[in-house]
């Protein structure tokens, strides 16, 4: 056991490249629920676009979120023993079909242990692709949430860019479907976070 006096340098990111699929995409990691999972199923889907507005068919999208009651199945959550053991919390999807990713999940509640009654529910999103030396991080918020008015992060963003973080509910499907397009660049560029 060695104690570091000065922190070690982090290992740098490198692009995921165009050929990650057979290393990272297998099983059904875009489906976060099984038949026992608590909560209404929802679809989260969208397209990843480049600066020309062209869909990116070789991106990798990852999500991480609380369960329907706002718990995480992880020791850092003080209430993790209450977390839904039948929910997967993490998902990943490629965008092979015209830049479109898709997840079947549940709508998270605000994380209970943040003790923030003003906070709006959200899903953490990470985007990797060829042409990105480092991934981009954002958060997807839900439309028509009263706490979207009081949420600290949403309120710190200019009104004209705030909409890039709020999904659009599409009603005409079997399951409630939230559309969340991700623009890496351009007039509609998504707000990305320094995380």
């Amino acid at each position, binding site marked *: *056991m*060695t*104690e*570091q006096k000065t*922190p*070690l*340098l*982090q*290992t*740098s*990111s*490198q*692009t995921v*490249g*165009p*050929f*990650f699929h*057979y*290393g*990272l995409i297998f099983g059904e990691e875009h489906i976060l629920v099984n038949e026992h999972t608590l909560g209404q199923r929802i679809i989260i889907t969208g397209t990843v676009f*480049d*600066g020309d507005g062209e869909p*990116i068919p*070789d991106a990798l999208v990852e999500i*991480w979120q*609380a369960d329907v009651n706002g718990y*995480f199945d*992880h020791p*850092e*959550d*003080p*209430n993790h023993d209450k977390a839904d053991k039948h929910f997967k*919390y*993490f998902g990943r999807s490629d965008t092979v079909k015209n830049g479109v990713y898709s997840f079947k999940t549940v709508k998270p509640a605000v*994380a209970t*242990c*943040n*003790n923030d009654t003003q906070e709006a529910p*959200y899903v*953490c999103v*990470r985007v*990797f*692709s060829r*042409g*990105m*030396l*480092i*991934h*981009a991080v954002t958060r997807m918020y839900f439309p028509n949430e009263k706490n979207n008015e009081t949420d600290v*992060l949403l309120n710190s*963003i200019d009104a004209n*860019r705030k909409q890039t973080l709020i999904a659009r509910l599409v009603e005409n499907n079997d399951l409630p479907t939230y559309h969340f397009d991700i623009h*890496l*660049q351009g007039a509609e*560029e998504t*707000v*990305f*976070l*320094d*995380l």
Partner: protein
Amino acid sequence: MADDNNSKLISTLDRSVHPPHLYPAYTSTVKRAPANALMPVAQKISDLTGPTYGEGTIGELDSDLTKNSVVNGEPVGERIIVVGRVLEESGRPVPNALIEIWQANSTGRYIHNRDQHDAPLDPNFRGAGRCLTNSKGEYRFVTIKPGAYPWRNHENAWRPAHIHLSVFGRNFNSRLVTQMYFPGDPLMALDPIYLGLPEKARPLLISSYAHDITEPEWALGYRFDIVLSGSRQTPFE
């Protein structure tokens, strides 16, 4: 403890060692790099937590790429053993870290259906594997040394030999996708993906030849440690 989570300090990505979004010599970054400054945000419990992996995640052969996709014989090429540790900046090891790797075969060809490089596929080599770090943060893969391959970034562009790695640390903030290079590869000095790194960060992506890992009459050893963002606190503070 329960109320501490927002004040607990975990480090985010150290932008002085990570590459920028925009590095024009790597031409695909030009239309894929966010133009706006990244927005500073407070860390939440969603950043302190992340996927956890344990027993049952990994099959016995998953970390041996020379065995995990054999059809009718051994894969062709130079057999290598890659070992290393996953650490946080404090030096604290990260146990149960999931590492996934993927790579070209010894001829520089990926099995991926979109790889058009005119080099032979190896029926006995898929080029993908995974493992979990042990309680000391250590991992070990057996594989075939990947070949260099051409790409279309610029005239006569070749990627240096590399293994792609995806790592999940203690929390979702420590998520890392990177590439491991081999010592002495002359193509690194010409590679805009490698050169996109700040200079001080470059040596950390080059594995070192490890004679103590090399097994006589069988395979060469390489060592590649991975340092993730995460707790900056020392383990004994």
